[in-house]
């Protein structure tokens, strides 16, 4: 077992990572939110839709720490009214380490994600869209909702096909085929009761880097962990390599020693990345950990400037 890297828990002061969880009614959004909250070691503010036929979702999540904010329905005829904007501001005032937004059952997660892109105090961490393996094919065939369900996969970083245990072979095959069509090239994680590796979703640096590396996990057949330990990297080659990393590498974090500049903290999530110069690294050199779905991804090779060779 590899020891955790020594990286500060709050790498970019003030920028709160935001995870958006979308998906149609019944796809398991609330279950996933609850899993994340249950496993959290940091303060997570959560925005949930307090609305629906039975108000179970919010009741499940509701806690007494003041970090749960309810979104009531705004009218799409006047998009200004109510909704996510004011709730996000209220959440930020509570000074959380991370923010989770559960999109509404008909919401488009990529549109919700735009709030995190625009708000100066926030950064978008990951957009997750969930699908119900039992229902997906029928939903897509339903003229009332088919297009709505399909649109929710646009802009997702990670697609979670949930309830695979209950789907049966035929429906599962149909659902997989539908997702290949709706979310081409996207990472699809198949789950039961939304059981994902938590370090995959947590936006704060600590959780990924302090997670035991190489432990046997339920998802090892889907997710693979990578580690990079190398020397200084020249900035132009590094930036070119980062821009070229495959999107099925979901998360990559750690310290990079930039040749001639010094250490910088790298945070890479599904194609979005930032390098924050920092001086509190305890060691020199480049030390990164990642998680993704390609079994044989040679990140060291790719980051050193041989993108064509790696990942083939």
């Amino acid at each position, binding site marked *: 077992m590899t020891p955790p890297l020594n990286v500060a828990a709050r790498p970019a002061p003030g920028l709160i990572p935001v995870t958006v969880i979308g998906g*149609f*009614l019944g796809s398991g959004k609330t279950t996933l939110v609850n899993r994340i909250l249950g496993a959290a070691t940091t303060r997570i503010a959560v925005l949930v839709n*307090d*609305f*629906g*036929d*039975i*108000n179970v979702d*919010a009741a499940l999540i509701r806690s007494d720490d003041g970090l749960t904010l309810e979104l*009531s*329905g*705004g*009218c*799409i*005829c*006047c*998009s*200004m*009214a*109510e*909704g*996510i*904007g*004011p709730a996000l*501001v209220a959440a930020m005032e509570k000074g959380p380490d991370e923010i989770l937004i559960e999109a*509404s*059952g*008909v919401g488009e997660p*990529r*549109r*919700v994600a*735009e*709030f995190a*892109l*625009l*708000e*100066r105090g926030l950064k*978008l961490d990951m957009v997750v869209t969930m699908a119900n393996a039992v229902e997906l094919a029928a939903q897509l065939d339903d*003229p*009332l*909702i088919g*297009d*709505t369900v399909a*649109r929710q996969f646009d802009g997702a970083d990670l697609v979670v096909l949930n309830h695979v245990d209950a789907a049966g072979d035929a429906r599962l095959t149909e659902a997989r085929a539908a997702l290949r069509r709706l979310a081409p090239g996207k990472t699809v994680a198949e789950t039961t009761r939304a059981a994902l590796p938590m370090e995959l979703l947590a936006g704060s640096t600590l959780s990924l880097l302090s997670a035991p590396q190489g432990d046997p996990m339920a998802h090892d057949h889907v997710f693979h962990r990578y580690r990079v330990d190398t020397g200084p990297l020249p900035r132009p080659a590094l930036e070119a390599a980062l821009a070229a990393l495959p999107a099925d590498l979901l998360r990559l974090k750690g310290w990079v020693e930039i040749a001639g500049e010094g250490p910088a903290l790298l945070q890479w999530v599904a194609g*979005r990345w930032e390098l924050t110069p920092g001086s509190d690294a305890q060691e020199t050199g480049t030390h990164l950990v990642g998680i993704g779905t390609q079994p044989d991804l040679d990140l060291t090779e790719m980051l050193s400037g041989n993108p064509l060779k790696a990942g083939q």
Partner: protein
Amino acid sequence: MTSSPATSSAVTIFKAARIRTMNPNRPLATHVAVRDGRILAVGDASDCAAWQATWDCTLDERFAERILMPGFVEAHGHTMEGSLWNNLFLGYFKRTAPDGHVEGGLKSIEAVVERLKEEEAKLTDPDQALVAWGFDPIYYSERMTRKHLDAVSATRPIVIMHASLHLLNVNTPVMERGNMLGQSNVEGILRDAEGVETGELQEMAAMNMAARVVGEAMAVRDVDADTLRTYGRASVNAGVTTTTDLHQRLNDDSLAAFLAVTKEADFPIRIVPALGAIQWALDEGIARATELKTQGNDRLYMGLVKIMTDGSIQGFTGRLKWPGYHNGAPNGLWNVPPAQLKAMILAYHEAGMQMHCHVNGDQASEFVIDVMEEALTKAPRPDHRHVLQHCQMADRAQFRRMKALGLSANLFANHIFYWGEQHYALTMGPDKARRMDACGTALAEGVQFSVHCDVPVTPLNPLFTAWCAVNRLTSEGRIMGPEECLPVEEALKAITIGAAYQLKLDHLVGSIEVGKFADFAVLDSDPAEVEPMKLREVRVLGTISAGQWYESAIPADQAPVPDVTIPDAPVPA
């Protein structure tokens, strides 16, 4: 009904050139006697002589040369109109402000910019934002950009809300302060072919950020007393004495505002707010609606529930059946998943509430008809009076089902003038555009119906709405679907007793008959006698509400708005 003993004996008789009562038992009269704000008697000169012999009364001859009708009833409006006029109106068509002056009528982007410059010059605080509304890019060949607005001010934040409320135009200071330049991942920030931000914003995130930059001027608030008073003035100008406010949260604060203002001695309208169901969790919403039914007074009627289903046709967010939008735009949006809408409608129905369901596209209206059929089969209820609001694309088969289920329709007749051309060319295509807002079908199939303006989406003015339903003239002079034109008499019913029925107030308002409230529209000519194409030119001099006179703020010599160009020979299409 409340009546003050001190005034209970005083009778006022209003004499008019003609009183068009909308009461089939006595369609025409010349005199109406009023006591305690209610109609004591309706008749002619000889009846009047008998009343004068019997009662201690005053003859009021101020309206002796005027036409009285029942005060008009707007069954789909929003009091938000009362606060929007705090900002500058930038419409393509002219529109009357609540204080009676005319704004808008800006026929080019240049004219829009000039009007903004004029307004900007009046602002003294350099940081004060300039906020405008009612701009509709659909009428202009040129697209407004932030260059236009930077020419108005390159330092003061400027935000222009579009008529659809789905988009904004902003200037560079708003983009800068809102962190919106160089945000290549945000699709809601529109760009030109070179990738430069144009200053047009759509989607909640970018629009929300612009609203944050300008702060107070665009803050979303619940209804307040000033908004209601201003809306009252706008109603007087339009001859309206009863109106809905068809989507409100109705929390304690807004309820308090409604209760306080409707008790003011000179508040000129009766108001019927609807609880916005999507703003409440289901159980809480039903509990709130139930509680609200115990509230109210002679000027405030609670109990309506509004259900939002889809978006709007001109915003391409209405939900359509096959073959969808004429220009190939993707199908529209549901406010909430249909399964939840269904649960909501069933629950409010079983709780005994009257629902007004927003349905623009034909998939949305069909969905609600399906759910209502289930609700009424499970829990039959006499006289439920559920209403399909807008109901713009329902076809004949849907109207037949509505008739069978006892559903009413409130049709958005103003759309034909304001966006008829766009529906013809872009959204619906010629064939479906011809049968939009199918008043003729509703009449033929026996569906109870009204027509509405959805103020502030289009102006509050029931006589103009009736003109739209009667003539079906687009802004370019096309008669869109002459088969659906409504006879004048039917249009007048729709804006009086028809709308009153949909609010369950037809025993109190909507016609001039004994026992009802003395709520009248005072007109300069008889809408039933003028040429149908001149219906919109009938002038409203003011209203009488509960026997009290309220004068319109619109100057007598002001030309009617909107500015309509009527061709010599309108083209049926």
